[in-house]
């Protein structure tokens, strides 16, 4: 069963003061997320990521389209017991402590009283919030709030978790921890759907990604597939500033970077390059297959859209 | 039906039911506490205190008190009450808050001075109110008129009435009628013509419906009084000529060569009693008449015709 099936969800806002004009925040979206995968929803700011998430949560009503979550209609209130949500830059009841907040949310999610206390402790441990007993949330730093947000999202052991920009406001250590957490969740068999504009995170974590820009879906697929539009090139790095003549014969693009040289050449030339370096007694530092980064794919998709848009207009 | 639709329906029904319930309950509550509102209102019955309590919103409070005054009078009038004890304080507070609220003075002139059940029976306070109004609105000739009105109708103090009308006629832009009234007061105070002029003026210048109604009733009463006076004079004349009173109105009518039987403003013929008195058919329809009533008649509280 697919964890999430988005069937043509679309949202058009009416903007303007006197004469309202329609503004399309999201074009009809068709997307499927399988159970047990970490799915990245990528796009620049204002692309429609948050709108999509809010529609799935029932916070915003779609202009058209439906969705199914864990096999049920997305408007079914009971399904909410099985999903967790971390909104962007969350804000919580200032005057509660983290324990009280989680306890409250636990009550609302229907976590039985006898399990609640234990579960709250577990989850706080899991997100790395310790020594905060009795501290009101308004004294929490941004990073701590983010962790508390994650805690409330996984408290009731949901099957499916939605994170909206989970890394925002976190320092590198924090981000690492969140990434580990998401891996953990996947290992527990949960599905993670998160939106972000930080591509390196997505690249590291996701099984599959979707790219959305200006309300339109630009590309969907497994990270490997998207980035393996490898041009069949390798990058060779060697010590020194010398470029052997034989390299030039091989049609290599060479750049001197500090006290090393980086050359890009075709994969089938790899052995010849190694031989060339050996003959000249040049020390080889690294050979790496060249993959398109997700970023490049991303930028290409966005530019492509712009040019098509340019042509169309 | 989805959960959301169900919620909408239930909430909608709840809204409608609650709305109806509220309106019905409100009407009930109004009935339970009719007096409460006025008693409440006059807990602070000193104009100075009210002014202080208004926190500067004098104008608004004046309007509110004026509304209450009219409500108060209307309710009691409708209930055929015999006293209007709160009318004077209400008017005093209203005018203390806003001395330029002219309708209040006219109201006071019409209803403070007359004796119950037509009014509060406090002519002295009425005069006080008018003088207060004149003091604050010296160039408003109508206030002099209202004051003269009180002297004339209730106190029958024609000398003072004349003096007031004279004062009023001096005001720039005064209606020329004021000078005429001053003159009339001096010589023909008791005439029907004078009274009719006065009440006609009251009717035409009145903006408030109670005051208008009051004026209408008085005009009707003057008509009846006039008719009865003339009819009784005719009866006198007939009796002298024929050494006996007329047997009926028709006999009198024939003798006087009238085209038909004389009728009152409602169209009913005047009755001629065996002892030669002229009476109206139903005295209750004519509050304020001084003639044409049967002996021992006690006037009922006035009811207004032409109810709005």
């Amino acid at each position, binding site marked *: 069963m697919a964890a999430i099936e988005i069937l043509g969800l679309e949202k058009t806002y009416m903007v303007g003061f006197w004469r309202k004009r329609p503004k399309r925040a999201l074009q009809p979206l068709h997307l499927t997320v399988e159970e047990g995968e970490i799915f990245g929803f990528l796009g620049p700011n204002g692309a429609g990521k948050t709108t999509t998430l809010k529609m799935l949560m029932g916070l915003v009503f779609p202009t058209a389209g439906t969705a199914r979550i864990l096999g049920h209609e997305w408007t079914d209130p009971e399904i909410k017991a099985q999903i967790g*949500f971390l909104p962007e830059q969350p804000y919580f009841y200032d005057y509660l402590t983290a324990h009280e907040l989680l306890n409250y949310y636990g009550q609302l*999610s*229907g976590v039985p009283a006898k399990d609640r206390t234990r579960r709250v402790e577990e989850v706080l441990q899991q997100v790395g919030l310790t020594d905060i007993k009795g501290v009101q949330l308004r004294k929490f730093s941004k990073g701590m709030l983010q962790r508390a947000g994650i805690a*409330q999202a996984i408290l009731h052991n949901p099957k499916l978790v939605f994170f909206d920009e989970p890394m925002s406001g976190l320092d590198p250590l924090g981000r690492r921890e969140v990434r580990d957490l998401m891996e953990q969740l996947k290992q527990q068999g949960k599905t993670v759907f998160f939106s972000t504009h930080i591509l390196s995170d997505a690249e590291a974590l996701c099984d599959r990604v979707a790219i959305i820009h200006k309300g339109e879906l630009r590309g969907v697929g497994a990270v490997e597939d998207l980035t393996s539009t490898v041009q069949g090139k390798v990058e060779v790095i060697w010590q020194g500033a010398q470029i052997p003549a034989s390299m030039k014969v091989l049609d290599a693009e060479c750049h001197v970077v500090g006290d090393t040289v980086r050359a890009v050449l075709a994969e089938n030339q790899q052995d010849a390059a190694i031989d060339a370096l050996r003959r000249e007694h040049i020390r080889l530092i690294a050979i790496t297959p060249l993959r398109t980064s997700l970023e490049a794919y991303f930028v290409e998709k966005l530019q492509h859209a712009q040019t098509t848009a340019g042509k169309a207009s | 039906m989805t959960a*959301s639709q169900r919620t909408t329906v239930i*909430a909608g029904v*709840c809204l409608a039911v609650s709305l109806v*319930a*509220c*309106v019905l309950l409100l009407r009930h509550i109004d009935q339970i506490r009719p007096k409460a509102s006025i008693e409440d209102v006059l807990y602070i019955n000193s104009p100075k205190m009210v002014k202080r309590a208004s926190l500067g919103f004098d104008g608004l409070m004046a309007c509110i008190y004026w509304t209450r005054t009219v409500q108060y009078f209307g309710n009691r009038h409708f209930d055929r009450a015999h006293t209007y004890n709160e009318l004077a304080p209400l008017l005093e507070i209203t005018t203390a808050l806003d001395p330029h609220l002219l309708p209040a003075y006219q109201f006071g002139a019409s209803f403070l001075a007359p004796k119950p059940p037509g009014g509060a029976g406090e002519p002295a306070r009425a005069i006080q109110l008018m003088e207060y109004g004149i003091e604050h609105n010296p160039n408003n000739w109508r206030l002099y008129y209202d004051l003269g009105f009180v002297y004339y109708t209730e106190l029958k103090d024609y000398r003072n009435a004349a003096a007031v009308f004279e004062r009023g006629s001096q005001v720039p832009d005064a209606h020329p009628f004021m000078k005429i009234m001053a003159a009339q007061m001096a010589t023909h105070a008791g005439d029907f013509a004078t009274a009719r002029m006065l009440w006609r003026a009251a009717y035409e210048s009145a903006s408030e419906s109670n005051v208008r109604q009051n004026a209408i009733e008085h005009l009707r009463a003057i008509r009846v009084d006039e008719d009865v006076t003339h009819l009784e004079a005719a009866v006198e004349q007939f009796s002298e000529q024929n050494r006996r009173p007329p047997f009926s109105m028709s006999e009198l009518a024939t003798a006087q060569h009238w085209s038909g039987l004389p009728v009152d403003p409602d169209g009913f013929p005047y009755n001629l009693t065996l002892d030669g008195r002229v009476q109206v058919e139903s005295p209750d329809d004519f509050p304020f008449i001084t003639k044409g009533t049967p002996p021992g008649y006690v006037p009922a509280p006035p009811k207004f015709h032409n109810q709005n």
Partner: protein
Amino acid sequence: MIPRLLHIASNTFREAVRDRVLYNLIAFALLLSGAAIFVGQISIDIERLVVVNLGLTAVSLFGVVIAIFIGIGLVSKEIEKRTLYTVLSRPVRRWEFIIGKFLGLAGTLVVNTFFMAIGVFGALLYVAHKFSKPDALILVALYFIVLEFLIICALALLFSSFSSPLLSAVFAFSLFVIGSFADDLRGFAAMTHGITRLFATAAAYLVPNFSALNVISAVAHQQPLSSQLIMHNTLYAFFYAAMALSGAVLIFERRNLK
């Protein structure tokens, strides 16, 4: 359903109680009750009158301010600051949120009134040196004041469901002031004609009838209050609050939470 309602209510109560604004306002109200003692001493005969009048008026006014501030704060702010998102991502219905908030607020205000009332009774005891039987009427006045609060809370929630915090506060307070003159509004409506009369009468009936609930002067003068009035007022407050809350639910059910 019910457990969730109660949880939301108790959380609202907790949230309100920890808001320092609340304490400042209560302290002020108590201060005013204390001041009443001094004002009363200026004129010996009317000590009791002043204490009851001033004390109950303070309870009423401050209570309304608290009701509006906290009522608006707890919903509008929640929507604006997005604490609501995490609540609604749980199996909580939107209407449960509104009703739960209302119950929590109502509870807060009852507790509030209790504390402020202590101030009034304390001041009364000080000037009168003992309680007499008619003083029980003060309890009725306080009960009516609580009914006023319930209506105001419901209205605050109604406005919060679609309006910004500031506007909601303004609307709610305006309705409080207008509602205090509801009698006069109906009187005014009776004096008008035609279309104005239609609108004025409709407005006069829609506005909450606080004039009937304001028995402070009567109680100060130790006038008796009929049990019929008490019952009718209770029902009226109940239905009026129900009306406002139904409206809030209807609006909130449809609202896009940006």
